[in-house]
Structures are given as C-alpha cells and as structure tokens.
C-alpha cells in the first residue's frame, strides 16, 4: 500500500475527514505503517502511552484488567483511532489492545502527534469534537445506568 492509498483511508476517518489532502499526506508521511499478527498486542494496560494508532485494515480487541482477569470491552475495526487518550493526557494505557485478525495500522508517535496538533488547529478542533462526542455518549450510558440502579433500588 502506498501513501496515496493511506491518505484515502485517513479521509474516511471522521477525525481527519475535514483536513485537506496535503495535511493528510503529512500525517501519513510522518507516521509509521505497522503490521501486527493476530494475537499480537499493540500495547498493554499500564504501559506508558507513546503513540496513537489508526486502524487501516483488520480488527482489534480492547481488553480491561478486572478482578476476574482481562475482559474484552470492545472490538475495533477499520478507521478506528486507538490510544489517543494515553498520549493526550499523559497517563498510562487505560486498556490492552490485541490484534484480532492480521492488523495494519498507522502509528503516530506522541511527539509527532502533538506537533501536528499545535501546527494545525483545525486538527485540534476535530479531536475536541470527537472527544466531546465520546463524552456525550459515555454520559448518556452513565445516565441510563444510574436510572437503572435507581429503578432497581426503588
């Protein structure tokens, strides 16, 4: 796959959809394409967050450590972006991500990611929007949980 094809993939990711081609090319060029075999971990919960991954091809499982061992909480597919929280907040990885199938990703390291964001505010806005969307979704889930708990205790 060449950079041109990667750019097409990036264009389909909501986070980057509004960026012009030159910026997408820059993003692709400054990131590393990395292939994982099925079962190989991208990173483990608790690792220092050094990079974010954009999924180009394949699927991956998100696992969280619990008292009963690792529990899969989500399966990610093409166009997902992984690991951006750890590099944005400078916290250790909050989950483990393992390739479910053979997985092709674009790996953007932390430094590069921050330089891109500071250089192009447009990208920062998109990231904010994406995060807000997620927060909204989480809040909604929380509200449902709370009302369920309330209903149960009543």
């Amino acid at each position: 796959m060449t950079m041109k094809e990667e750019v097409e993939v990036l264009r389909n990711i909501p986070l980057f959809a509004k960026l012009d081609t030159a910026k997408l090319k820059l993003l692709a060029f400054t990131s590393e394409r990395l292939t994982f075999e099925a079962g190989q971990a991208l990173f483990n919960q608790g690792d220092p967050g050094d990079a974010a991954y954009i999924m180009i091809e394949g699927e991956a499982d998100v696992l969280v450590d619990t008292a009963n061992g690792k529990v899969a909480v989500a399966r990610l597919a093409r166009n997902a972006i992984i690991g951006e929280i750890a590099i944005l907040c400078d916290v250790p990885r909050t989950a483990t991500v393992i390739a479910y199938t053979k997985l092709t990703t674009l790996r953007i390291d932390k430094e590069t990611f921050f330089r891109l964001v500071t250089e192009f505010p447009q990208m920062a806005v998109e990231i904010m929007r994406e995060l807000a969307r997620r927060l909204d979704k989480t809040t909604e889930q929380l509200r449902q949980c709370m009302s369920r708990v309330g209903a149960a205790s009543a």
Partner: protein
Amino acid sequence: MEIILQRFIFKYAPRETAAVCVLTIASLPFYYLSLDVPKNIFNQAILGKNIKFPTELFGASFSQVGYLFLLCVWFLLLVIINGGIKQYINTLKGRLGERLLRRLRFELIVRIMRFPLPHFRKVSAGELIPMITAEVEPLGGYMGDAFAQPLIQAGTLLTVVTFLFVQNPIMGLAAIALYPIQGYIIPKLQRRVNQLGKERVRAMRKVSERIGESVAGAQEIHTHGASGYERADFSERLGLVYRIRFEIFQRKSMVKFINNFLNQMAPLLFYSIGGYLVIHGDLTAGALAAALTANKDMSAPWKELLDYYQQTQDSKIKYEQVTEQFRPENMFPEELLSVAEGPAAPLDGPLAFANVSYSEDGHIKLLESISFTVKPGEKVAIVGRTGGGKEVLALLVARLAFPDGGKIMIGAKDFTTLHEHVIGARVGYVSHNAYLFSASVRDNLVYGLRQRPISPRQRDEAVERIRRGWHAESRRAGNLDLDIEADWVDYQAAGVAGPAELTQRLVEVLSAVDMEEDVFQLGLRGTIDPKARPDIAKAILQARAALQERLASDDMRNLVEPFHPERYNTNATLAENLLFGTPLGPAFDSDRLAENPDVLKVLDKVGLTDDLVKVGRQVAETMVEIFAGLPPGHEFFEQFSFISSDDLPEFQALLARTAKAGAEIGANDRRRLLTLPFKVIEARHRLGVIDEGLKTRVLEARRIFRDELSPDGRRAIEFFDPAAYNASGTLQDNILFGKVAYGQAKAVARVGGLIVELLDQLKLRSAVLEVGLEYQVGVAGARLPPGQRQKIAIARNLLKRPDVMIVNEATTVLDTQAQAAVTEGIFRECEGRILIWVLHQVALARRFDRVLVIADGRLAETGGSTELERPGTLFAELLAAA
C-alpha cells in the same frame, strides 16, 4: 623547585653550563686575532709598512704576494675556527636549553600530581595548561643562552674595547664614555616594563581561565543566552591585555631608542674630542678613522647585550610567575609518588583511626578527634548530613587527604606514610563523580592495575637501541625512564595468570556491577579488523548463517530483508541498493552521490538518469506539497523531509519552471532533482515511486558499477558479500546482513533478541564482549551515559581486589534497580575485605555490620544499625528524614 631561574639552570646543568662558558672564553682570542689579521693584511702585506720583503717566517722566506696569501690563508683558518667553535657552542646551548625546558615541564607536571586535592578547587586546567605548554616555551631558548650569551657579547665587546685601547687609549675611553649613563638609565626604564610583564601574564592567565570556563559551561551559556555577557567580558579582558601589551611595546622601543641615541653619541665624541686632538696634532687622522671603524664593531655586541638584558628580565618574570603557581602548601611528599619495584604487600590487619582531625587550609576544622577501628571483613556504613564531614572522612580513608592530627594505622603500618603505589594497589575508592580516561573500556578497567611495568615489550635490537638512547636522555633531563610501551598490567594483582584470563575476569567484574549486558551491546555496535581478529570474523559469519536459517521460519520471515546480490532490498535506500556496499569516507556519501562521476557514468550506461530525474521530480512534488504548509525551520523538516526548509523555495521554483509538459529540464535542475531519489527507502516512505522496471535497472546498474568501478572508487567502498566479513560494518550489521523490515511490529526488539539468543547458542558472547571492551569511551567517558561511567569506575576498583574498599556515594546516579544490583555485586566482590561505604540513602545502612554517624565533624554514634535504630538517636533522626 628553585625560586630563581639562574639557580635552576646551574643546579641541573652545571657541567654543560660550565662547558659552554669555558668554550666561549676560549674562543675570544681567536676572535681577537680575526680582528687583528685584517689590519696586518692591510698595513703589512698590502701597504708594506713596518716590514721588509722577502720576510722570514717559520724558517721559510716569503715575497710580498706570498706573504699576502699566507695571511689570507691564516685569516681563512681563523674564520673556520671561529665558525666551528660558534657552531659547537650553539649545539651545546641548544641541547642545554631543550633539556632544561623538558625538565622544567616535567617538574611542573609532577607537581600537579602532588597538589593536595583541595587545591584543585582553586586552580583550573585552563590556567595550568598554558603555563606548562606556552608560557615556559620561550624559557627553553633563554636557558641555553643564560650564561653563555653575556659572556660572548661582553667578551666580544671587551675584545673590541681592548683593541681600541691598544690603538689609542683616549679613543678607547671615548668609546665607552657613555656606557655608565646607559647602564644607569636602561635598568630604570626596564623596571616598569617588568612590572607590566607581570601584569600581562596575570591578565592573560585570567583569559585562559575564562576560556576554559566558557568551554566547560558552553551549555549554560546557550541555555541562558549569555553569549553577549560573555563576549563583553572577553572584550574587556582582551582590552586590558591589549593596553598592557601596547604599553610594554612602547616602553621597550623607548629603551631601544635611547640606547641607539646614546650609541650615536659615541661618534660625536670621536669627532669632537678626536677632531680637537687631530687639530692640535696629538692624534693622526688615520688613527681617528681606525677608531671610528672599530667603534662600529662595538654596537652589535652592545645591542645583543641589551637584548639579553631585556630577555633575562622577561624570563625571570615568566619563571617566577609560573613556578609560584606550583608551590601550594601541603603538597604530597615526592617520595610517596615513587614507582613500585615489585608487588605491593597486602594491607592486613585492622584499619584504625585514633583521634584523627582534619582541617582545610589549616583553619577550617572539618573533622575532630575521630577514633574507630574496622576489622578485616567488616562492612561499615558512614552516614550523616551533607557537609557534616562524612565526605572528608572517606577521603582520609582513601588516603586522598592527610590528617593534621591523630594517627591512622593499618595493621602495624602507618597509613599516612605508605607509598602511593601501595595505596593504589591495595585500596579502592570510588566517588560519585569518578573520571574515565579517553581510552577503551578495557583500558579504563585495567587502569588500577598499572602501578609499574610488569613485562618488557619485545622489540628488534635496532629499535631497542634507539629506545635505550631515548631513556638515557630522559634520565639526563630528570624525567622518568620507564617504558610506556611495556605491559604495565599487573595480572597477579587481579588474581589471573595472563591476558586471556584477564578478559574473563573483566567480564566477571562487569557483571558484578550490572554492566555485562551494556558492554555486550557496545560490542554488537563495535567494529573489528577481520585481519587482526580472524577468529571473531569467522564466528560472526557463522552467526550470520545461523540467523538466515532462523529467519526462514514462518513467524520470523518478515522481520529482516537480507542483502541479496540479485535482489532489490525494499528496506534499504536506493543508494544502498545501487552501491551494494558500505561507503568508506565521503566519496559515496548519499548526499553527494549525484555528483559522483562513477555513479553518473553507470546511470547513463543503463539509461537510468532520465528516470531518476523523473522520480526526483515526483519526490520533490510530494515534499513541496506536504511541507510547504509548515513554517520554515519546523522540526519536521529535519526529521522527515527530503528537502531542507532552506531549499524548499528553490525546489518550488524548480517545479514551477518544469511544470509544462515536455518542458526541457536544465542541467542544474537535473542535478538537484537527482539528489532526491537516492534517499528513498521504498518500504518506509511508501511514496510508490520505485516500480519493478526501475528496480531491475538499478540491479543492472549495481552489477556494472561493481565490475567497472575506478581504482579510486574501489578504495572508497566495501561491497556486500554474503560470504565475507564487512570490516566497516558493526558486528550486528555483519550478523544481520540485511535490513530490519519497516512496518513489522516490534521487529527491532525481536531481531535483537534473536541475535543475542543465537550468539549465546554459538558461544560467541565472550567474543562480542571482547569487542565491547574495546569501545572508546570518549573524553571523560562522554560517549557513555553517566550510569555506565560510574559502573566502570566501580568495576575498576573491584578488579584490583583491594584490601580496603571505599564507596563514596558512588551509586547515587544509578536508578533504583541498578543500584540494588551494583550494591549486591560490590558486597559479593568485597567478601572478606574491609568495605567502607558513605551512604546517601541512610536506610541502606541496615545492610552493614556497623554504622558510623558523623555529625559536625565528630563521630556522634557508632554501633550496629539495629542497636542504633531507637528513638533519640541521630541515626533514627536521619532515617526518619530520608
């Protein structure tokens, strides 16, 4: 060291000086004769005065012409004798001066080694270095001349004056009439010049010191943007030097002027007094003319004498000002530095401090009546607040400082009078800022085993004879005559039989300080000369074959793309694919490949040039598109771009110029574009510009390049050969013989692990470690991280198996994990020996047999840690504070 230069010269070269003086005096009669003979030639042989021809001489009869030639031959003989003596004297002087200079420098360097350690806080390398190198340099010339020059010139002068007096006493008197005045005025003027000379030396030294500081503090200068301040400071100091130097120049030339003026007065006296005498008939006109001529001969030696006088004053100041810097108080006694004759006897018995006190500069008391005893095998921790005296105590135990009261004994021996080679062999000390020398890891490790030459170096008899001559000269100059090329490593002291076993032991101590793995990695990144170490080269080729085999397995297949003579390597640059070898030197540097005639010839031959220009244009287009939006100088240019931010506008213009379809690209533009494709790594950059057709032709070019390369080019590259060791590549490159693939997760780590595994399987670990031991650590060990420097310094001490080992907060720069491992290693290696450890982390004291708590220069508490760890003790307080 002598305070006065003249005394230094006379003390160390009395015979040579005397020889020069005697010869000088002996030469004067010949000089007198050489003045006399021309007069006789003129008066007797030519004018025939006071002589009748033929004349009888040596029992033979001479005609006037015969007599003339006889005198001429005699004159020639005198010239030859005079010249010969002068030449001989000059040789003697030269040797005398150079030998004394060598002695002086050596003495000064030895003195630095004898400086008490606190003195190094007051002097800087920036001050000391120019003193020994530059400042004393002119003394070499002067010292050879010191006694001879005044003798020669005064002798010559005296000869001329005598000659004048013999001609006519009044004229003689006239000739020297002004000398007393000159002798009075000139020293007066010189005195101020001397003062200024001293000031100049001081000012210049300050400049050297500040230069030293600005080198050492370069990082701070940049960090704080202080270059303006620094430059103003230098400007001020150089201004001072300028003013002093210019004033010296003016005054010196004033002295010369007055001197010349007074010299010119002499003829005036001749004209006036001589003229008066001639007019009154008391003197013939001829005699006056002769006196005038002779007077001219006086001016040269007189000028020389004056120069000598000025030079003497300069040298006197230089010598005094240099040597006074090398006379600090409390220098180590010279005897302690003597070189060992044989192995040092072990220091057995307890180390006992009795009422030891120590003060710095004779007044600041740092330690007071410290008494304690450490038995062999005991492990003692010293704790206390920073500045409370524990650091100084460590220095005393290491014998780096001397107590000014009390007694330190080890067994039955007085610790303070032990020779330094005994201390060096039997006592280990490592502080938190240990120093590494600019040499290999191995050299740094064995540094503590080099107290004396152990076995002589084997040489040819002819070479040996020359060396013996050199050593004899060393002795004459008061230098050390030991052979630096002998084997100085005391294998016995390290407990091994010879060099082969030593390597084994080096690895042992390295693993004791948790550094074996680091040195192994250094070895993998190191190079060897396969001719010097065919064994290692062969073993590495074995590892290469084994790796290829392993990589053939399914899960490893994609990790490495090996170099194959017939295949394009997508993980290597286009340049690497074309050259298929390691460039030696700049000729085939990837930045300059587009200018290399060998490369251009091949590209033209296979018709690649136009295609590569096209590829270059595509690359340029992409780069311009991607990077044009970034501000100039953005880090991304450096990190990712093929085109620097400075060159970007030029390439933009170039692309615009050549945008029209079918537009002819000019020669210059072609050259620029041609530089770009060479850097493309297909698998990494994913630009999609290198297609299969291009690859095939690059392979064709590779073959032709290899076959038809010019002899010059052949020397500038080492081709890859699957069956041969590549001397310019690292061990790892040689094992890998290919490129770690881009895009494979954790490929570098997995391949690295595989290589280590294979090397262990093939029992090649020690070979790689040997290469790692040859790693050059750089000035002050700068090519190693601080932790590794510290580990080597500790290992260096463990290697010599000291009877007393002192660790002075030496593990503080290590991370917690390494600290624990190193501590374990030191304890293991020091089993049965005295171990004294100044601790930064008080909690670690629990590991030790006994704890000494030092507070305000006194031994406040001592005992086992469990015993001391109770409320109310200082130890408990320190523990709580930590």
